[in-house]
């Protein structure tokens, strides 16, 4: 069997198209790796029974000279909160009497239309309400968590069990796992990608996006996933650019902003050093660096807690009344029950603060083209650990891990995490780049410029 470990999505798609390799060979390769490694990683909860049949059909289409989509024959993992017509969806719950429709979500349908093989469903933290994704493990060190809630997707892509995967991000659930698993993870602008057919967690914070190995792979995935869908009330009817077109443009002359409060208040030393090095590298590459502060970020955690807790509890209201939440995992059950404590004025005050934060970031983005900083203040943590040392403080992983990602859920701005180094234990560190609404092209351009001048993308976990 050929070894496709070093091939990224873009290369696999190009080689299938050029008939250098077949979709069947690639699909068999991934299924073989899943059989070898997923008993340890536990990244998939369901594998497609028809993946090889779909791959054979894709190969026949190539031979017939049919018009091929950008993901033709490429095996992709689907987070288990995206509905799929040929595989069951559990949203990570084992609670009895909770089921979801067996039909394609808007994104699942778009991926199929682009020719993707939907290889299997990747594990999510139950109802996407958490940052651990038990029992999934991090391929860089299987004693450590892949973060969450898209932990299954991140673990699978990092371990080379699929070419790319989908994720959902309510407070950082794409970017955090991408950061701690050494991947690229994009949360597009709120309204860029349809959430129809994704099990809701918090309606005004949920975003759909890809997890991939390279920035180019993310651009390819976004080209497929983005677009108007009237069935998602938040989806915006705007033109979708070709994100590959501007990917390799130089960043000379761009201004990059550093928000010096909040994002730099309490980082692990290795994270802080890696980010400062990245800032210097951007400066050397010709970008102008400016610094600013957004003092109101101090109130952001209360705001996202109020919105996320209240929304999640509203979504699970029937389960709460019918006693089904007693069968949820203890952490998720507690969060769903806690939402009842959030008062309506607390919720609306959170939405008021959100308006101000949106204005603050808009103001900052009049002076810079993108904002850069760490994705997470900490690297991956050991499974079963709930507190980690950060500087001289012992910090809760729950409050620390999403500290830098949630501001972009509150503001809806596009934000990407890309690898920017490793800590002293060999665990990946993530660099976050955010931009103006619907300017994913700028975010991707900045990310690609950094990726081109560093070798992080060619580092592989030991698995």
């Amino acid at each position, binding site marked *: 069997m050929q070894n496709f470990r070093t091939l990224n999505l873009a290369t696999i798609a190009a080689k299938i198209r050029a008939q250098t390799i077949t979709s069947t060979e690639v699909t068999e390769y991934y299924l073989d790796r899943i059989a070898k490694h997923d008993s340890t990683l536990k990244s998939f909860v369901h594998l497609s029974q028809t993946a090889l049949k779909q791959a054979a059909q894709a190969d026949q289409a190539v031979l017939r000279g049919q018009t091929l989509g950008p993901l033709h024959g490429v095996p992709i993992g689907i987070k288990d909160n995206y509905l799929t017509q040929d595989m069951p969806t559990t949203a990570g719950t084992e609670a009895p009497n909770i089921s979801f429709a067996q039909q394609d979500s808007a994104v699942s349908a778009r991926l199929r239309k682009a020719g993707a093989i939907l290889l299997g469903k990747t594990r999510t933290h139950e109802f996407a309400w958490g940052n651990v994704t038990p029992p999934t493990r991090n391929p860089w060190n299987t004693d450590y968590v892949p973060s969450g809630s898209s932990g299954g997707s991140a673990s699978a892509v990092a371990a080379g069990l699929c070419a790319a995967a989908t994720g959902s991000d309510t407070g950082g659930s794409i970017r955090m796992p991408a950061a701690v698993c050494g991947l690229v993870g994009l949360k597009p602008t709120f309204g860029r990608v349809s959430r129809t057919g994704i099990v809701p967690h918090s309606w005004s914070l949920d975003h759909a996006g890809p997890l991939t190995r390279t920035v180019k792979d993310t651009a390819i995935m976004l080209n497929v996933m983005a677009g108007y869908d*009237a069935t998602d009330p938040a989806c915006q*009817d705007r033109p979708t650019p070709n994100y590959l077109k501007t990917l390799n443009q130089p960043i000379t002359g761009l201004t990059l902003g550093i928000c010096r409060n909040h994002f730099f208040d309490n980082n692990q030393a290795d994270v802080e050093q890696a980010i400062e090095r990245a800032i210097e590298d951007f400066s050397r590459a010709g970008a102008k660096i400016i610094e600013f502060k957004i003092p109101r970020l101090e109130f952001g955690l209360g705001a996202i*807690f109020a919105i996320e807790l209240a929304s999640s509890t509203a979504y699970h209201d029937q389960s709460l009344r019918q006693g089904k939440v007693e069968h949820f995992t203890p952490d998720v059950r507690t969060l769903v029950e*806690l939402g*009842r404590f959030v008062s309506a004025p*607390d919720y609306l*005050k959170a939405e*008021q603060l959100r308006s101000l934060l949106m204005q603050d970031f808009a103001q900052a983005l009049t002076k810079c083209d993108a904002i850069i900083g760490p994705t997470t203040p900490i690297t991956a943590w050991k499974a079963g650990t709930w507190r980690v040392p950060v500087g001289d403080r012992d910090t809760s992983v729950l409050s620390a891990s999403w500290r830098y990602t949630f501001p972009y859920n509150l503001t809806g701005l596009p934000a990407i995490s890309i690898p920017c180094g490793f800590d002293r234990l060999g665990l990946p560190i993530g660099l976050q780049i955010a931009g103006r609404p619907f300017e994913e092209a700028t975010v991707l351009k900045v990310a690609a410029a950094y990726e081109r001048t560093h070798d992080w993308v060619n580092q592989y976990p030991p698995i």
Partner: protein
Amino acid sequence: MTKKTPIDIKKNTPLDMTKKTPLKKKKKPPLDVWTDILDVQVNPERLKQNLASYTEILEEIKKLRALDLTDVHPAIIFEPTAPYRKLEKS
């Protein structure tokens, strides 16, 4: 057997049975109040645990409560045309 006159134990004098003792308003147990507010059945032990879990989050929400946001419109915008755009596009 002679009937004993009831004694006012505070004053140690016979109780005047012609006076009506004012009815004390029955205090509602705190758990019922929680059940009304939260609108779900609450197990007292579970409620205690949840309140403890909420403490850290409440500290963050209290910071928000302390802000004067009187003149700020919430980020939620009511859009009455939303159902129509779905009809137009489908």
